[in-house]
């Protein structure tokens, strides 16, 4: 049955290759122009190569900030500038908070206990939702 052989080969090759994910982005005109300029400067011909390189750079930056390292550029004259990128600051190790004592009145403790005992938390306000989404 000669017709079956190529079919089996196709199935086999599909299984062994990792599936690629399509990535689509809506870019503002200025960002689109920036992508074109960068691709030109970096001599990248495809969006896939561009994204792959950008991803490698971003992944490196995230791993450095996660370790607590600062990312610095240094000019030929030795002038240094630290990269400040708000989203990167979110991965920096910074959750170690010291412990302090707060003074409470009896009435405050009663009120606090009532709030803590609530079975369900109050729904978030619009401002809080915006704060967590920004």
């Amino acid at each position, binding site marked *: 049955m000669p017709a079956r052989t190529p079919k089996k080969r196709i199935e086999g090759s599909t299984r062994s290759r990792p599936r690629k994910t399509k990535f689509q982005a809506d870019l503002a005109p200025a960002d689109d122009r920036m992508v074109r300029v960068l691709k030109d400067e970096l001599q990248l011909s495809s969006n896939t190569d561009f994204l792959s390189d950008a991803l490698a750079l971003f992944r490196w930056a995230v791993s450095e900030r996660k370790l607590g390292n600062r990312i610095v550029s240094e000019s030929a004259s030795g002038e240094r500038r*630290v990269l400040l990128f708000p989203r990167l600051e*979110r991965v920096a190790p910074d959750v170690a*908070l010291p412990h302090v004592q707060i003074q409470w009145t009896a*009435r405050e403790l009663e009120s606090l*206990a*009532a709030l803590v005992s609530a079975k369900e938390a109050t729904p*978030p306000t619009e401002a809080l*939702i915006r704060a967590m*989404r920004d």
Partner: protein
Amino acid sequence: MAIAIRRLEQNDDVAPFDCGDEPLNNYLERHAWTNQEKSSIGVSYVAVDDTAPRTVIGYFTLAMASVPRDAFPKKYVRGLPPYDLPLILLARLAVDRRFAGRGLGHALISEAFRIGLNAAAEVGCRAIVTDAYPDRIGWYARYGFVPIEGTSDTGPQRMYLDLRTVRAALRG
């Protein structure tokens, strides 16, 4: 103006900071760094603009706190978990008045919430509390802080925000 919020560093320029409130200015200038690095009684996070990345234009200070279970009135103790109650204290939050009205306070408190959630994930925490100036109670209430009853009528109002509410906001 691109703003970044990060931990206070020793060589940050805090002297020009002016939020219009002397105790808050004074804390940043004289105590924030010492409390963070030497006394370990509060970590300050500062907002800086990328055009002047050492000049502080806003800040907040966080610390962990807890309430011993036996400090609560007996009638409530049964409904509480059998441990001390861990809290995050938002000790201070201030914006330089030259940068007021640009959403910097919103950016700072957003970051405080994110750090609060991270801290809760790391060490467990139930709520954020803060002592709000009377004229700022409405601002904190917009984010869901509710007054804790029993604070003095003249001083700051102690306020409470359940971290489950913050988590719910994250989910949208």
